[in-house]
């Protein structure tokens, strides 16, 4: 078992952290999620570690993000904050505006589009994306097309200071 952990860590840890940094914007949190992902892999070693690890890591990040967003909304309501209805980047808030806008635009995509995009940017093939997300391979192209377009348009909208139509996806 230690050998498996070493092997998985050596082979996938850096890539997982990179993916999760893109997803969460928080390196420390990304490290924690990567560790948690590897821990789960040890509990029930997957047949196809690469696909399993990346898919699980994104699921963990999504789950945590949803929980954080809910908590953030509750806090906003308590404070009667007029911004409460807006998507909240949560504790991952960036100090850098441009980076925060990219992350915010990314969060405005629906879960599947965002995960497909992140997996593709991590070097996954369409087959691997289809396997990781449990979707037909033929749908990967259109998913990526939609995700890329929405990300660019949402980022443009946010950068120009206007509302974005993609807030509906949140």
């Amino acid at each position, binding site marked *: 078992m230690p050998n498996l952990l070493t092997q998985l860590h050596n082979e996938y840890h850096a890539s997982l952290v990179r993916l999760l940094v893109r997803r969460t914007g928080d390196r420390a949190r990304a490290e924690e999620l990567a560790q948690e992902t590897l821990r789960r892999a040890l509990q029930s070693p997957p047949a196809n570690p690469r696909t399993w690890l990346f898919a699980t890591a994104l699921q963990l990040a999504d789950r945590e993000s949803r929980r954080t967003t809910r908590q953030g909304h509750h806090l906003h309501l308590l404070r009667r904050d007029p911004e409460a209805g807006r998507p909240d980047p949560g504790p991952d808030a960036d100090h850098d505006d441009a980076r925060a806008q990219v992350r915010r635009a990314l969060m405005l995509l629906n879960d599947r589009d965002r995960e497909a995009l992140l997996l593709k940017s991590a070097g996954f093939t369409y087959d691997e994306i289809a396997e990781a997300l449990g979707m037909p391979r033929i749908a990967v192209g259109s998913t*990526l097309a939609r995700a890329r377009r929405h990300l660019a348009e949402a980022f443009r909208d946010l950068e120009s200071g206007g509302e974005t139509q993609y807030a509906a996806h949140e």
Partner: protein
Amino acid sequence: MPHTNEGTLHALLDGELPPEEQREVELHLEECAECARRRDEARQFMVGADLLLEGLDHLDPAGPSPNPDAVPVGDAEKLILFPFPPENVHQPPRRFPWAALVWIVSIAVAVGAGYVLSQNRNPVGDRTGGQSTAVVSDLERQQAQAPAPAPAPLTPPSVQPADTFATADTALTGLAADAADSEFDSTGDETELAQTPPPVPKRQPAQQQPAQRQPESSTSASRPRTVPPPAPAQQSEPAPNDVAANPAPGSVDTQTSPPPQPVSNPEANLERRSGIYLRIGLDEARRMLGSPLHVIDGLRPQFIGMVAAGRAPGADPTRPAIRVVYLDAAQRMILLDQQRLPIGDSGRDRPRQPTITSSPAGPVAGWVKGDVWLALHGVSADALQDLAGRVR
């Protein structure tokens, strides 16, 4: 054949279409200006999205800590022979060109929106000429006629709005070069990789709009390069890396340009002979491989591209591969094919050292490096043995 849907266009650009479908789509794109234009638009969104995500890495303040065994990078290592920093070379963190990125994404979105506008204004459109002429002329007309807000509200400091739409694709290429600059320093980058200038210009320079071309050249000049500045006739050309696969939207005015002349373009011929179907850049290659592209030390690549599934010796025949094309002193093509090992294939059954085998097309040196299959071919077995030892 019906119009190609957006998902298929993205799959084509990602090199993920089955060979048969890929041929059908490419044939259709040659005949259908609308789909070809949408392919170019899809490419802009693809590059824009990739760069946005990549920017998240560049600005991560707590990025990977430098290797304590790192050695300073020397000038020689900034050349194209070192397109990616070796693991044991410490590169100081560099800033990601966010301002340019914001501008580029705005352009990509605006060009897409402009296309929709042009379709609404002119349902028939000018589909007989250049693929994107209608888009550009319509947008320019829109800018000139109405005080309406500009589609791209953000402009970089050194580029005038008038130049925006005419150089959208060129700018995308430039941004990729900027990103490469920020990562690999400004002396060696993706632009230089495809440094061979086209011997014969594919189209006439837009002499009617010298004022609009000026900002672009000034933008290019503002980026330090080791390559000499382009000749005036090439100032409006996108980087050669993108010319074949993606003509710059709006850079051709079919109303003023002379009819296309048959040209002899050795680079295009080389591209055809090399068997690639789509040129890609270093960043795309790295993303597809999941690791830095392997190159031959001491040789200068002509270009990088995708080869269809089954065309790379020894590679997984169900997936496309990446091909780096070189020319030796005798102008013989040396091809270095690379493909990430398929899922579940650890490479244990494959040689870890270059192993020469014979194939119908000649000798091939094949081996696994990391989790990438490498196949070197195109020259004699002796030459392959020598070259394979220089692949890193």
